[in-house]
Structure formats: C-alpha cells, structure tokens
C-alpha cells in the first residue's frame, strides 16, 4: 500500500527507470491544462504547458508559435480573422 497521502490522485504518477534497472513509481505535481483556441476550442499545438518554474527558463519561441495570435488562436481561425479584416 502506498502511504495515505499518495492514495489520492492530486499528484501525477511517473515511472522512473533507476540506474539499477528497476522501474520505480515517483509522484510529481500535475501539469496545467493545455491551451485551447479562443474561437473553435481546439487544443493548440506548439504551446508548452509546464509548471511556471520550467516556463521561466524556456526560450520564447518554445512557449508559443511566432505568428500573430500565436498561442491565442489556432492557425485556421487566425487565417479567417486576417482575411475578414482585409475584406472589410
């Protein structure tokens, strides 16, 4: 039996391979939810979802795509937004 604090699912479980070849169970804090498109709600690709201490050390280009509305809208929705702006 794991200790009572580890019986809840508030921590995520990670299998870690030890130097001796065993696989041990480690408990780590959960990752935040994945970013979603503001208009269609699809999961955004290329947007990192990590704990803040890891996000701090990440380069800017790994956190979100380098285009207008990057990290806010998916590429399809961004296209429609830009096209609508130009047509009006």
């Amino acid at each position, binding site marked *: 039996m794991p200790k009572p604090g580890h019986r809840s699912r508030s921590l995520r479980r990670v299998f870690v391979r030890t130097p001796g070849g065993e696989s041990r169970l480690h408990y780590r804090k959960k990752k935040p939810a994945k970013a979603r498109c503001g208009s269609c709600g699809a999961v955004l690709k290329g947007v990192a979802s990590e704990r803040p201490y890891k996000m701090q050390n990440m380069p800017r280009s790994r956190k979100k795509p380098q*285009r*207008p509305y990057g990290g806010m809208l998916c*590429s399809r929705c*961004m*296209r429609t937004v*830009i096209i609508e702006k*130009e047509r009006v």
Partner: protein
Amino acid sequence: MIFEIGRIAVKIAGRDAGKKCVVIDILDNNLVLIDGQTRRRKCSIVHLEPLDKVIKIKKNASNKDVVSALKKEGIECKEKAAKEKKEKSERPKKQKKKKPEKEPKKSKAAKKKEKEPKKGSEEKKAAKKDTKDKKEPKKSKEKKAETKGKPASN
C-alpha cells in the same frame, strides 16, 4: 490567373501573417516570389490572400522599387539593407596567402632548417617533461609532509 506580377496580397500563414506584399515573379503553378512588408521570399499561393489592387512593377523588381511603389499605394514598409559580402571575400584570401608562404620556406631552408627546429622542439619538450616530472613529485611530497605533519601536531 489571380496572382499576376504586381498583385498586392496579404500573407495568411507564418510569422509574416497579416503583412502586405507584392507578387514580383511567378515561379511555378503554386509558387510566387513576393516582397514588401514581408521578407523577400518565394511563397505558396495557398499562403496568400489576394487584394483587389494591382501595381505596375517589373519582373524581379529590386527591393527599393517595391518599397517606393508600395508607398504610393499607402503601404509603408522598411527597406532591407543590402548584405555585405566582406566576410566571404576575406576568408579565401587568407587561405591562399598561407599556402604559398609554407612552400617557399621549405625550398629555401632546405633540409638544415627542418632538422634544427625539430631537434630544438624535441629538446624543449624533453625539458618540459623533466620540469613537469620534477614539479609533480615535489608537490606530492610537500602535501604528504603536510598531511603527515598535521596529525602529528594534533
């Protein structure tokens, strides 16, 4: 064809999305060369949204011409500085200089000079090795002496 030379368009994809550009050249059924607010580059037609304006521009027009033509239409964009090719010209020159220098030295010096520096270098190396060998044991002895001395004092 919608994308003729001089057609103004908006880029829809990539980091230049939302920026305006002019078609300068048609490379392929699907590929066009563009310049303007975007970088000067070839671009797929799928990534462009055509606008209703067409300017008069020569095929493969230079960046200066494109910028001035777009200013008349009310689209401002920066001129790109021409690339300086200084580095490329310097590097091969240095290499060429080095090679001829080595060859005449060998011919002038003949065999004597080649032998002398080798001997000297060998002697120096040997001397260095000796100094190294001497230094290292000295240090170790000193350390040992210190380590020996300490517990005795304690």
